[in-house]
């Protein structure tokens, strides 16, 4: 039995070794401890092995002991190798690194490779980025993930530079991963390599590049980001790209000057391009942006007017609510009226310095100009964000309107979800929840209503 052998060996070591009670034989005792730990590492019983691993993690400091522990790696079975690699990583002594590199060179089993790559993240040096990159390129998915995590962790600008250089020649899938790694590394020195990828042929690369630029870029990179916006397919990709521009501009401390880099960059664009980036300008907001957007709205040319409307509808706050209300009722184009109305409903409840009453008042104003049930339902849905008893009272009449009743039910239940609000106005909520239970066609909603009536909790399922 291996346990017996190991412990017997250990006892022999103790017996034959230094007198541990005498402080002047520390080196010898140190060596004894290392040998004992090595013996334990080879035990087939994982509980016994764990004793040795605990020592690897915490005891016998110094590179000599680390090297002796690491030297056992090739002699151990796979499961024990994985455990020792993890312990060496926790030990944090780079003296184990050469043994780990040697082990990887033997192309061990996947779990061992994974553990070795993970350990390199803690113990490696910049030169090991090439090894990690190799496994990121050619490894199985789990190995790639380990290499990716270690590339994020491995310190040094040289690592980022290597990854940045790899971007040029990597296939699209690898480019996306490298972009994510560089973003996580906050690799600002690679921005010159990142910017061209904002206009890459592959949509996934463009998306990853814009996400990276949104995190890392500064105002001076806005021209490049706008090229990314122009390259993005209209729809979700374009919106994400516009939000990356917003991210960069949001880091400008003076809110009134956030649009300046975008406006400056737009000067270098063609008329058609300017129209295409106008919605991005709208997301940034600010007085200068508003001026440019209003100028576009004022144009009779439909595509220019349309771009202006879309830009205004992206506005980040409720400051343009009166203008949106005006457009919702007076714009000559019905589709623009609808766009403005929906934007008004969106900004009405945005959290800012306005009171809940003011926000609800704006929603009421929006409701009055709604001509379709889809917008009315949008009003009812957005009302959930204003957690007051007045909102509940606002919603109640819609429970009796078939076209809006289901959305009203949803919003009432969402309001009731907030215990402090619900309990403070229990009678009103109970009455509303009874109505929901009576008319809702959604079993989950009915269950929630019943729970809230009984002061029970409900846990929202995570997507």
């Amino acid at each position, binding site marked *: 039995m291996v346990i017996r052998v190991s412990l017997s060996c250990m006892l022999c070591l*103790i017996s034959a070794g230094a007198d541990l009670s005498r402080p002047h034989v520390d080196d010898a005792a140190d060596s004894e401890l290392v040998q004992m730990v090595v013996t334990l590492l080879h035990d087939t019983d994982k509980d016994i092995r764990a004793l040795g691993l605990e020592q690897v993690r915490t005891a016998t400091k110094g590179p000599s002991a680390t090297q002796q522990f690491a030297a056992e790696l090739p002699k151990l079975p796979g499961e024990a190798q994985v455990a020792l690699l993890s312990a060496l990583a926790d030990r944090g002594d780079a003296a184990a690194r050469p043994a780990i590199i040697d082990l990887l060179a033997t192309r061990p089993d996947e779990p061992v490779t994974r553990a070795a790559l993970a350990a390199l993240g803690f113990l490696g040096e910049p030169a090991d980025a090439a090894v990690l990159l190799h496994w990121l390129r050619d490894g199985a998915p789990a190995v790639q993930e380990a290499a990716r995590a270690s590339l994020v962790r491995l310190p040094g600008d040289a690592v980022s530079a290597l990854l940045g250089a790899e971007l040029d020649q990597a296939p699209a899938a690898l480019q996306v991963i490298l972009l994510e790694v560089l973003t996580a590394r906050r690799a600002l020195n690679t921005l010159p390599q990142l910017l061209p990828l904002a206009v890459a042929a592959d949509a996934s690369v463009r998306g990853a590049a814009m996400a990276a630029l949104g995190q890392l870029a500064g105002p001076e990179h806005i021209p490049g980001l706008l090229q990314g916006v122009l390259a993005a397919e209209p729809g979700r990709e374009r919106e994400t790209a516009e939000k990356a521009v917003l991210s960069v501009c949001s880091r400008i401390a003076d809110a009134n000057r956030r649009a300046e880099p975008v406006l400056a960059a737009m000067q270098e664009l063609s008329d058609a391009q300017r129209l295409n980036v106008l919605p991005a300008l709208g997301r940034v907001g600010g007085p200068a942006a508003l001026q440019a957007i209003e100028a576009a709205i004022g144009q009779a040319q439909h595509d220019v007017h349309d771009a202006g409307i879309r830009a205004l509808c992206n506005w980040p706050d409720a400051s343009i609510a009166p203008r949106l209300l005006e457009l919702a009722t007076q714009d000559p184009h019905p589709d623009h009226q609808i766009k403005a109305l929906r934007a008004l409903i969106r900004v009405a409840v945005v959290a800012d310095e306005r009171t809940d009453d003011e926000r609800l008042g704006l929603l009421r104003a929006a409701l009055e100009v709604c001509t379709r049930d889809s917008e009315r339902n949008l009003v009812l849905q957005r009302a959930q964000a204003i957690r007051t008893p007045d909102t509940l009272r606002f919603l109640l009449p819609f429970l009796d309107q078939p076209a809006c009743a289901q959305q009203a039910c949803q919003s009432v239940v969402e309001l009731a979800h907030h215990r402090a609000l619900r309990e403070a106005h229990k009678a009103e909520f109970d009455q509303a929840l009874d109505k929901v239970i009576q008319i809702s066609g959604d079993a989950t909603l009915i269950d929630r209503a019943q729970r809230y009536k009984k002061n029970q909790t409900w846990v929202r399922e995570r997507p």
Partner: protein
Amino acid sequence: MNLDTLDQAFEALKTYDWGADGSALQPLDEAVVATRADAAARQALEKRLAETLTTGISRDAKDVVCRLLMVIGTAASVPALASLLADAELAHMARYALERIPAPEAAAAMRAALPQLSGLLRVGVIGSLGVRRDVESVPALAALLDDPDPAVACAAAVALGAIRTPDAAAALAGSSVSHAEVRRATTDASLACAESLLAGGQRAEALAIYRRFAGEDQPKHVKLAATRGILACAGQSQ
């Protein structure tokens, strides 16, 4: 301290029993606090309390007195408290006080009571000697390791493990226990002694114990503990 109300409280103690109004005894608690800086008054209070233990007051009243003597008791209270050690209903409250009275007479009284006691009363006193970490009790406890009553032998082992001196460790090492439960208790106590010895810098002594329990004949969990101890011994020399 109002002596009249204290007298009334002592009077109330004579008739105090389960469910009675405890506020009548409140002056006793107040007297404990009030005499903190007055040795003579504290001594007088202790004497009066101890005397009540030899009277016919109820079990609950004696319970109250034991709790008070736990706070203010000295060697003077020991005889009265020790007289309760053979009382199945009050022994635990007497030990509650005797465990905490700093005077060595408290431990001596419990040691002296050991031969007269049996069963759970004996186990209780053994446990109290362990709680006191009374080194003087090591020989007496060592002698009980092979008591025919396994509960007594286990309690002795546990107490020696709580005392944790080299003598306690030696006593445990010298025992030849066959009863499985007692062997488990002596093993646990020995490892506790080793831990204490190691913490005190007596590595060789600790190592000797750990080595004894790292052998093939030990259960796995004991071997694990002993191996961890051996590693700790080796590690401490760094």
